[in-house]
C-alpha cells in the first residue's frame, strides 16, 4: 500500500486584480504518493505554477490569498504551519526547480556556494563539508569537470548546465518531494531529453517523489505515473498516465493529446491532421457559473454553460469533470 506523502484538499487561491477577484485555483484535489511522479499539465495560465507555489508557501500575499483548503505533508497541514516551520520544509523536505534556468541562479555567487548554502542551512554542515556535498551533487547531476566548475559563476554555464545546477541544489538535502515547474521549457530538445533522463534516474536512486509541471504531453508520457489535467484553475481530469494517453475523456484532454499525435500512434498509421484547441483560456476574473472550458468546447450545450460539472470517478483512479460522461452514461 503506497503511502500518501502529499495531499492537497479543496485548495482555493485567489488573486486581487483590477477587474476583481480571480479564482486562480478552485477546489483543487491532488494526492502524491511516495516515489511517484505526478504530472500536472495544462495551458499557460491555468494555475500550475500557483499550485506549486502554494505547496511551497510562496504565493505572493498580497495580491494573492489562500482562500481555503489544506495541504498535508505526512498529515501536517502546511497552510497552517508557521513561517519558521515552512523555512524548514522548503529546500529540505520539499524542493522546487523553476522554468527559467538562465535567471534562477544568483549571478554574484559561485554555483558551489549556492548549492552548499542549502546544505549548511538545513543540515548545519561546515563550509568544507557543504562544499564536498555540493561537489557530490554536481557529479550526481552529470556536470563534467565538477571540481573545476564548482567555482564557476552562473553566467559561465549554458542553460542546460544551469538547470542541472538547479537540480543539484534542489536535491542537496534529499527532499521527499521535488517540484519541477516546467524544468525544460527554456531548453532545446536534446537537452530536454537529458534532463528528463536525469530526473528519472535520480528518482530511482533517491526515492524522491516528483511533481512534474509541464504543458508538454510528451514529457508526461516520459516521466509521469499519474497525470492531473488543469484548466482555468480546475482539475478537469486525473488518471494514470496510460489511461490519459489512451482513453482521455475530457474534450480538453483529448485536444491536448491530439496536439501531439505521435504519442498514441505508430508512424505507419496515417495521422489525422495536427489539431489545436481553438480559442484561449478565459480571464479568470470573468468566469461564469458554467464549465470554464464550455466556450471552447465543440460538445458544449446549455447545461455546460450554466453549471460547473462535478468531478466524477468513471473508472478506478480516473476522474473527469465533464457533463459528457453523464450524458454518455444516460445514453
Amino acid at each position: 500500500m503506497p503511502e500518501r506523502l502529499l495531499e492537497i484538499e479543496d485548495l482555493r487561491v485567489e488573486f486581487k486584480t483590477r477587474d476583481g477577484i480571480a479564482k486562480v485555483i478552485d477546489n483543487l484535489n491532488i494526492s502524491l504518493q511516495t516515489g511517484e511522479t505526478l504530472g500536472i499539465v495544462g495551458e499557460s495560465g491555468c494555475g500550475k505554477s500557483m499550485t506549486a507555489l502554494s505547496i511551497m508557501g510562496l504565493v505572493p500575499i498580497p495580491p494573492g490569498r489562500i482562500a481555503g483548503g489544506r495541504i498535508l505533508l505526512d498529515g501536517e497541514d502546511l497552510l497552517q504551519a508557521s513561517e519558521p516551520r515552512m523555512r524548514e520544509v522548503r529546500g529540505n523536505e520539499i524542493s522546487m526547480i523553476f522554468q527559467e534556468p538562465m535567471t534562477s541562479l544568483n549571478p554574484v555567487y559561485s554555483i558551489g556556494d549556492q548549492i552548499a548554502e542549502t546544505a549548511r542551512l538545513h543540515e548545519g554542515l561546515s563550509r568544507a563539508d557543504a562544499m564536498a556535498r555540493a561537489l557530490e551533487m554536481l557529479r550526481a547531476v552529470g556536470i563534467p569537470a565538477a571540481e573545476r566548475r564548482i567555482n564557476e559563476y552562473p553566467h559561465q554555464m549554458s542553460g542546460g548546465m544551469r538547470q542541472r545546477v538547479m537540480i543539484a541544489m534542489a536535491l542537496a538535502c534529499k527532499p521527499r518531494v521535488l517540484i519541477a515547474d516546467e524544468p525544460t521549457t527554456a531548453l532545446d530538445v536534446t537537452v530536454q531529453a537529458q534532463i528528463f533522463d536525469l530526473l528519472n534516474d535520480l528518482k530511482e536512486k533517491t526515492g524522491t517523489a516528483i511533481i512534474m509541471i509541464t504543458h508538454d504531453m510528451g514529457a508526461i508520457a516520459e516521466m509521469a505515473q499519474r497525470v492531473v489535467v488543469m484548466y482555468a484553475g480546475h482539475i478537469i481530469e486525473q488518471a494514470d498516465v496510460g489511461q490519459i494517453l489512451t482513453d482521455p475523456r475530457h474534450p480538453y484532454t483529448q485536444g491536448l493529446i491530439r496536439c501531439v499525435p505521435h504519442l498514441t500512434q505508430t508512424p505507419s498509421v496515417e495521422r489525422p491532421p495536427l489539431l489545436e484547441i481553438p480559442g484561449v483560456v478565459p480571464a479568470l476574473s470573468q468566469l461564469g457559473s458554467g464549465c470554464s472550458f464550455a466556450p471552447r468546447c465543440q460538445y458544449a450545450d446549455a447545461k455546460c454553460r450554466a453549471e460547473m460539472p462535478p468531478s466524477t470517478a468513471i473508472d478506478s483512479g480516473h476522474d473527469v469533470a465533464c457533463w459528457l460522461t453523464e450524458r454518455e452514461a444516460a445514453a
Partner: protein
Amino acid sequence: MANISIIVVKRILNAAALILAVVILNFLLIHIAPGDIVDTIAGEMGGISPELIAEIRADYGLDKPLYEQLGLYVLRILQGDLGHSFFYDTPVVTLIWDALPQTLLLVITALSLALVIGTIFGVIAARRPNGAFSHLITVLALVGFSAPVFWTGIMFLIAFASFFPLFPPAGMAAPDLQPGSLDYYLDVLHHMVLPVLTLALIYLAFYSRLSRASMLDVLGSDYVRTARAKGLSERVVVYKHALRNALIPIVTIAGLQFAQVLSGAVLVEAVFTWPGLGTLALEAILRRDGPTILGILFFSSVVVVIFNLLTDLTYNLIDPRIRLGSKE
C-alpha cells in the same frame, strides 16, 4: 575585439573634439562679456592715461586680434599652461591645484554619505513598497531633487548658523588654528557639516529612489524566488542574495555621477564660502579674472568629458564581456 578598439578610439577622438569646442566657446564667452581686466585695473587705479592702458593691453596680448589670442590660448593649454591670474598673480594651474583638495573633501564626503544612507533608506522602502516609509522616501526624493541646492544651503545657514548658531556660517577652519593639529581637524569637521549636508541631501534623495527601484527590481527576480525556495530567512534573502545585486547599478551610477556632484559643489561652496574650486570661480568672476575663469571652466569641462567618456567605455566594454562569458 577589433571593433572595440575602434569604438574606444572613436570615443576618445569625440571627447578631444568636445574639449576643444569647450575651450573655444569658453574663450569667446569671456570676450563677448563687456569690460575686461584692463578696465578693472584702470578702475582700481583711478584715472590712468590711455597710453598706460594700451601698454597694459599689449603686455597681456589683449591688443592682438581675437583669433590670434584664441590660437595662443589653445597652444598654451596643450602645454598644460592655463595662464596666469591677474588678480592673484599666480599661475591658474596652481590656484586650481590648491583649491581642488577642499572641493574633493566636500564632494567625496557628501557622496559617500548620500550613497550609504540612501541605499539603506531605499532598501527599507523596497521591503514594504506600499508602506508609509516608502511613500515618505518618494516625497523626500521629489523635494530633495527639485529644491535648488543654493536655496537648501541658505535655509540651512539661516536655521543652523544664524537662528540656532550650532555651526559656523562660513570658511573651513578658524584662522588661528595650526593646520595639522587635532583641533584644526575637529574645526574643519565642524565647518563641514552644513555644506556636506546641503550637498548630500540632493544625492541622498536620488540614491534612496535609485536603490528603492533597484532593490524592488531584484526582489522580484527569479533568483530571489530561488533563495526563498531554499528555505532561507527573509533577512538572508534580502541582505545576502538581493542587496549585492541591487548595489551593482547604484555603485556604477555613483561613480559616473562624480562629475555632476562636483558641479553641485561649486554652488554649495559659494553659499558657505568654502575655500574650494567653487569659491575660487566665484571670486574670479567678481574680479573679472579671465584666465582663472577660463582655467576653471576648462578644468571642469575636462572632468565632465572624461567621466562621460568613462561611462561610454564601461558600457561598451562590459557588454561584450557578459555576452562572451555566457556562451561557453
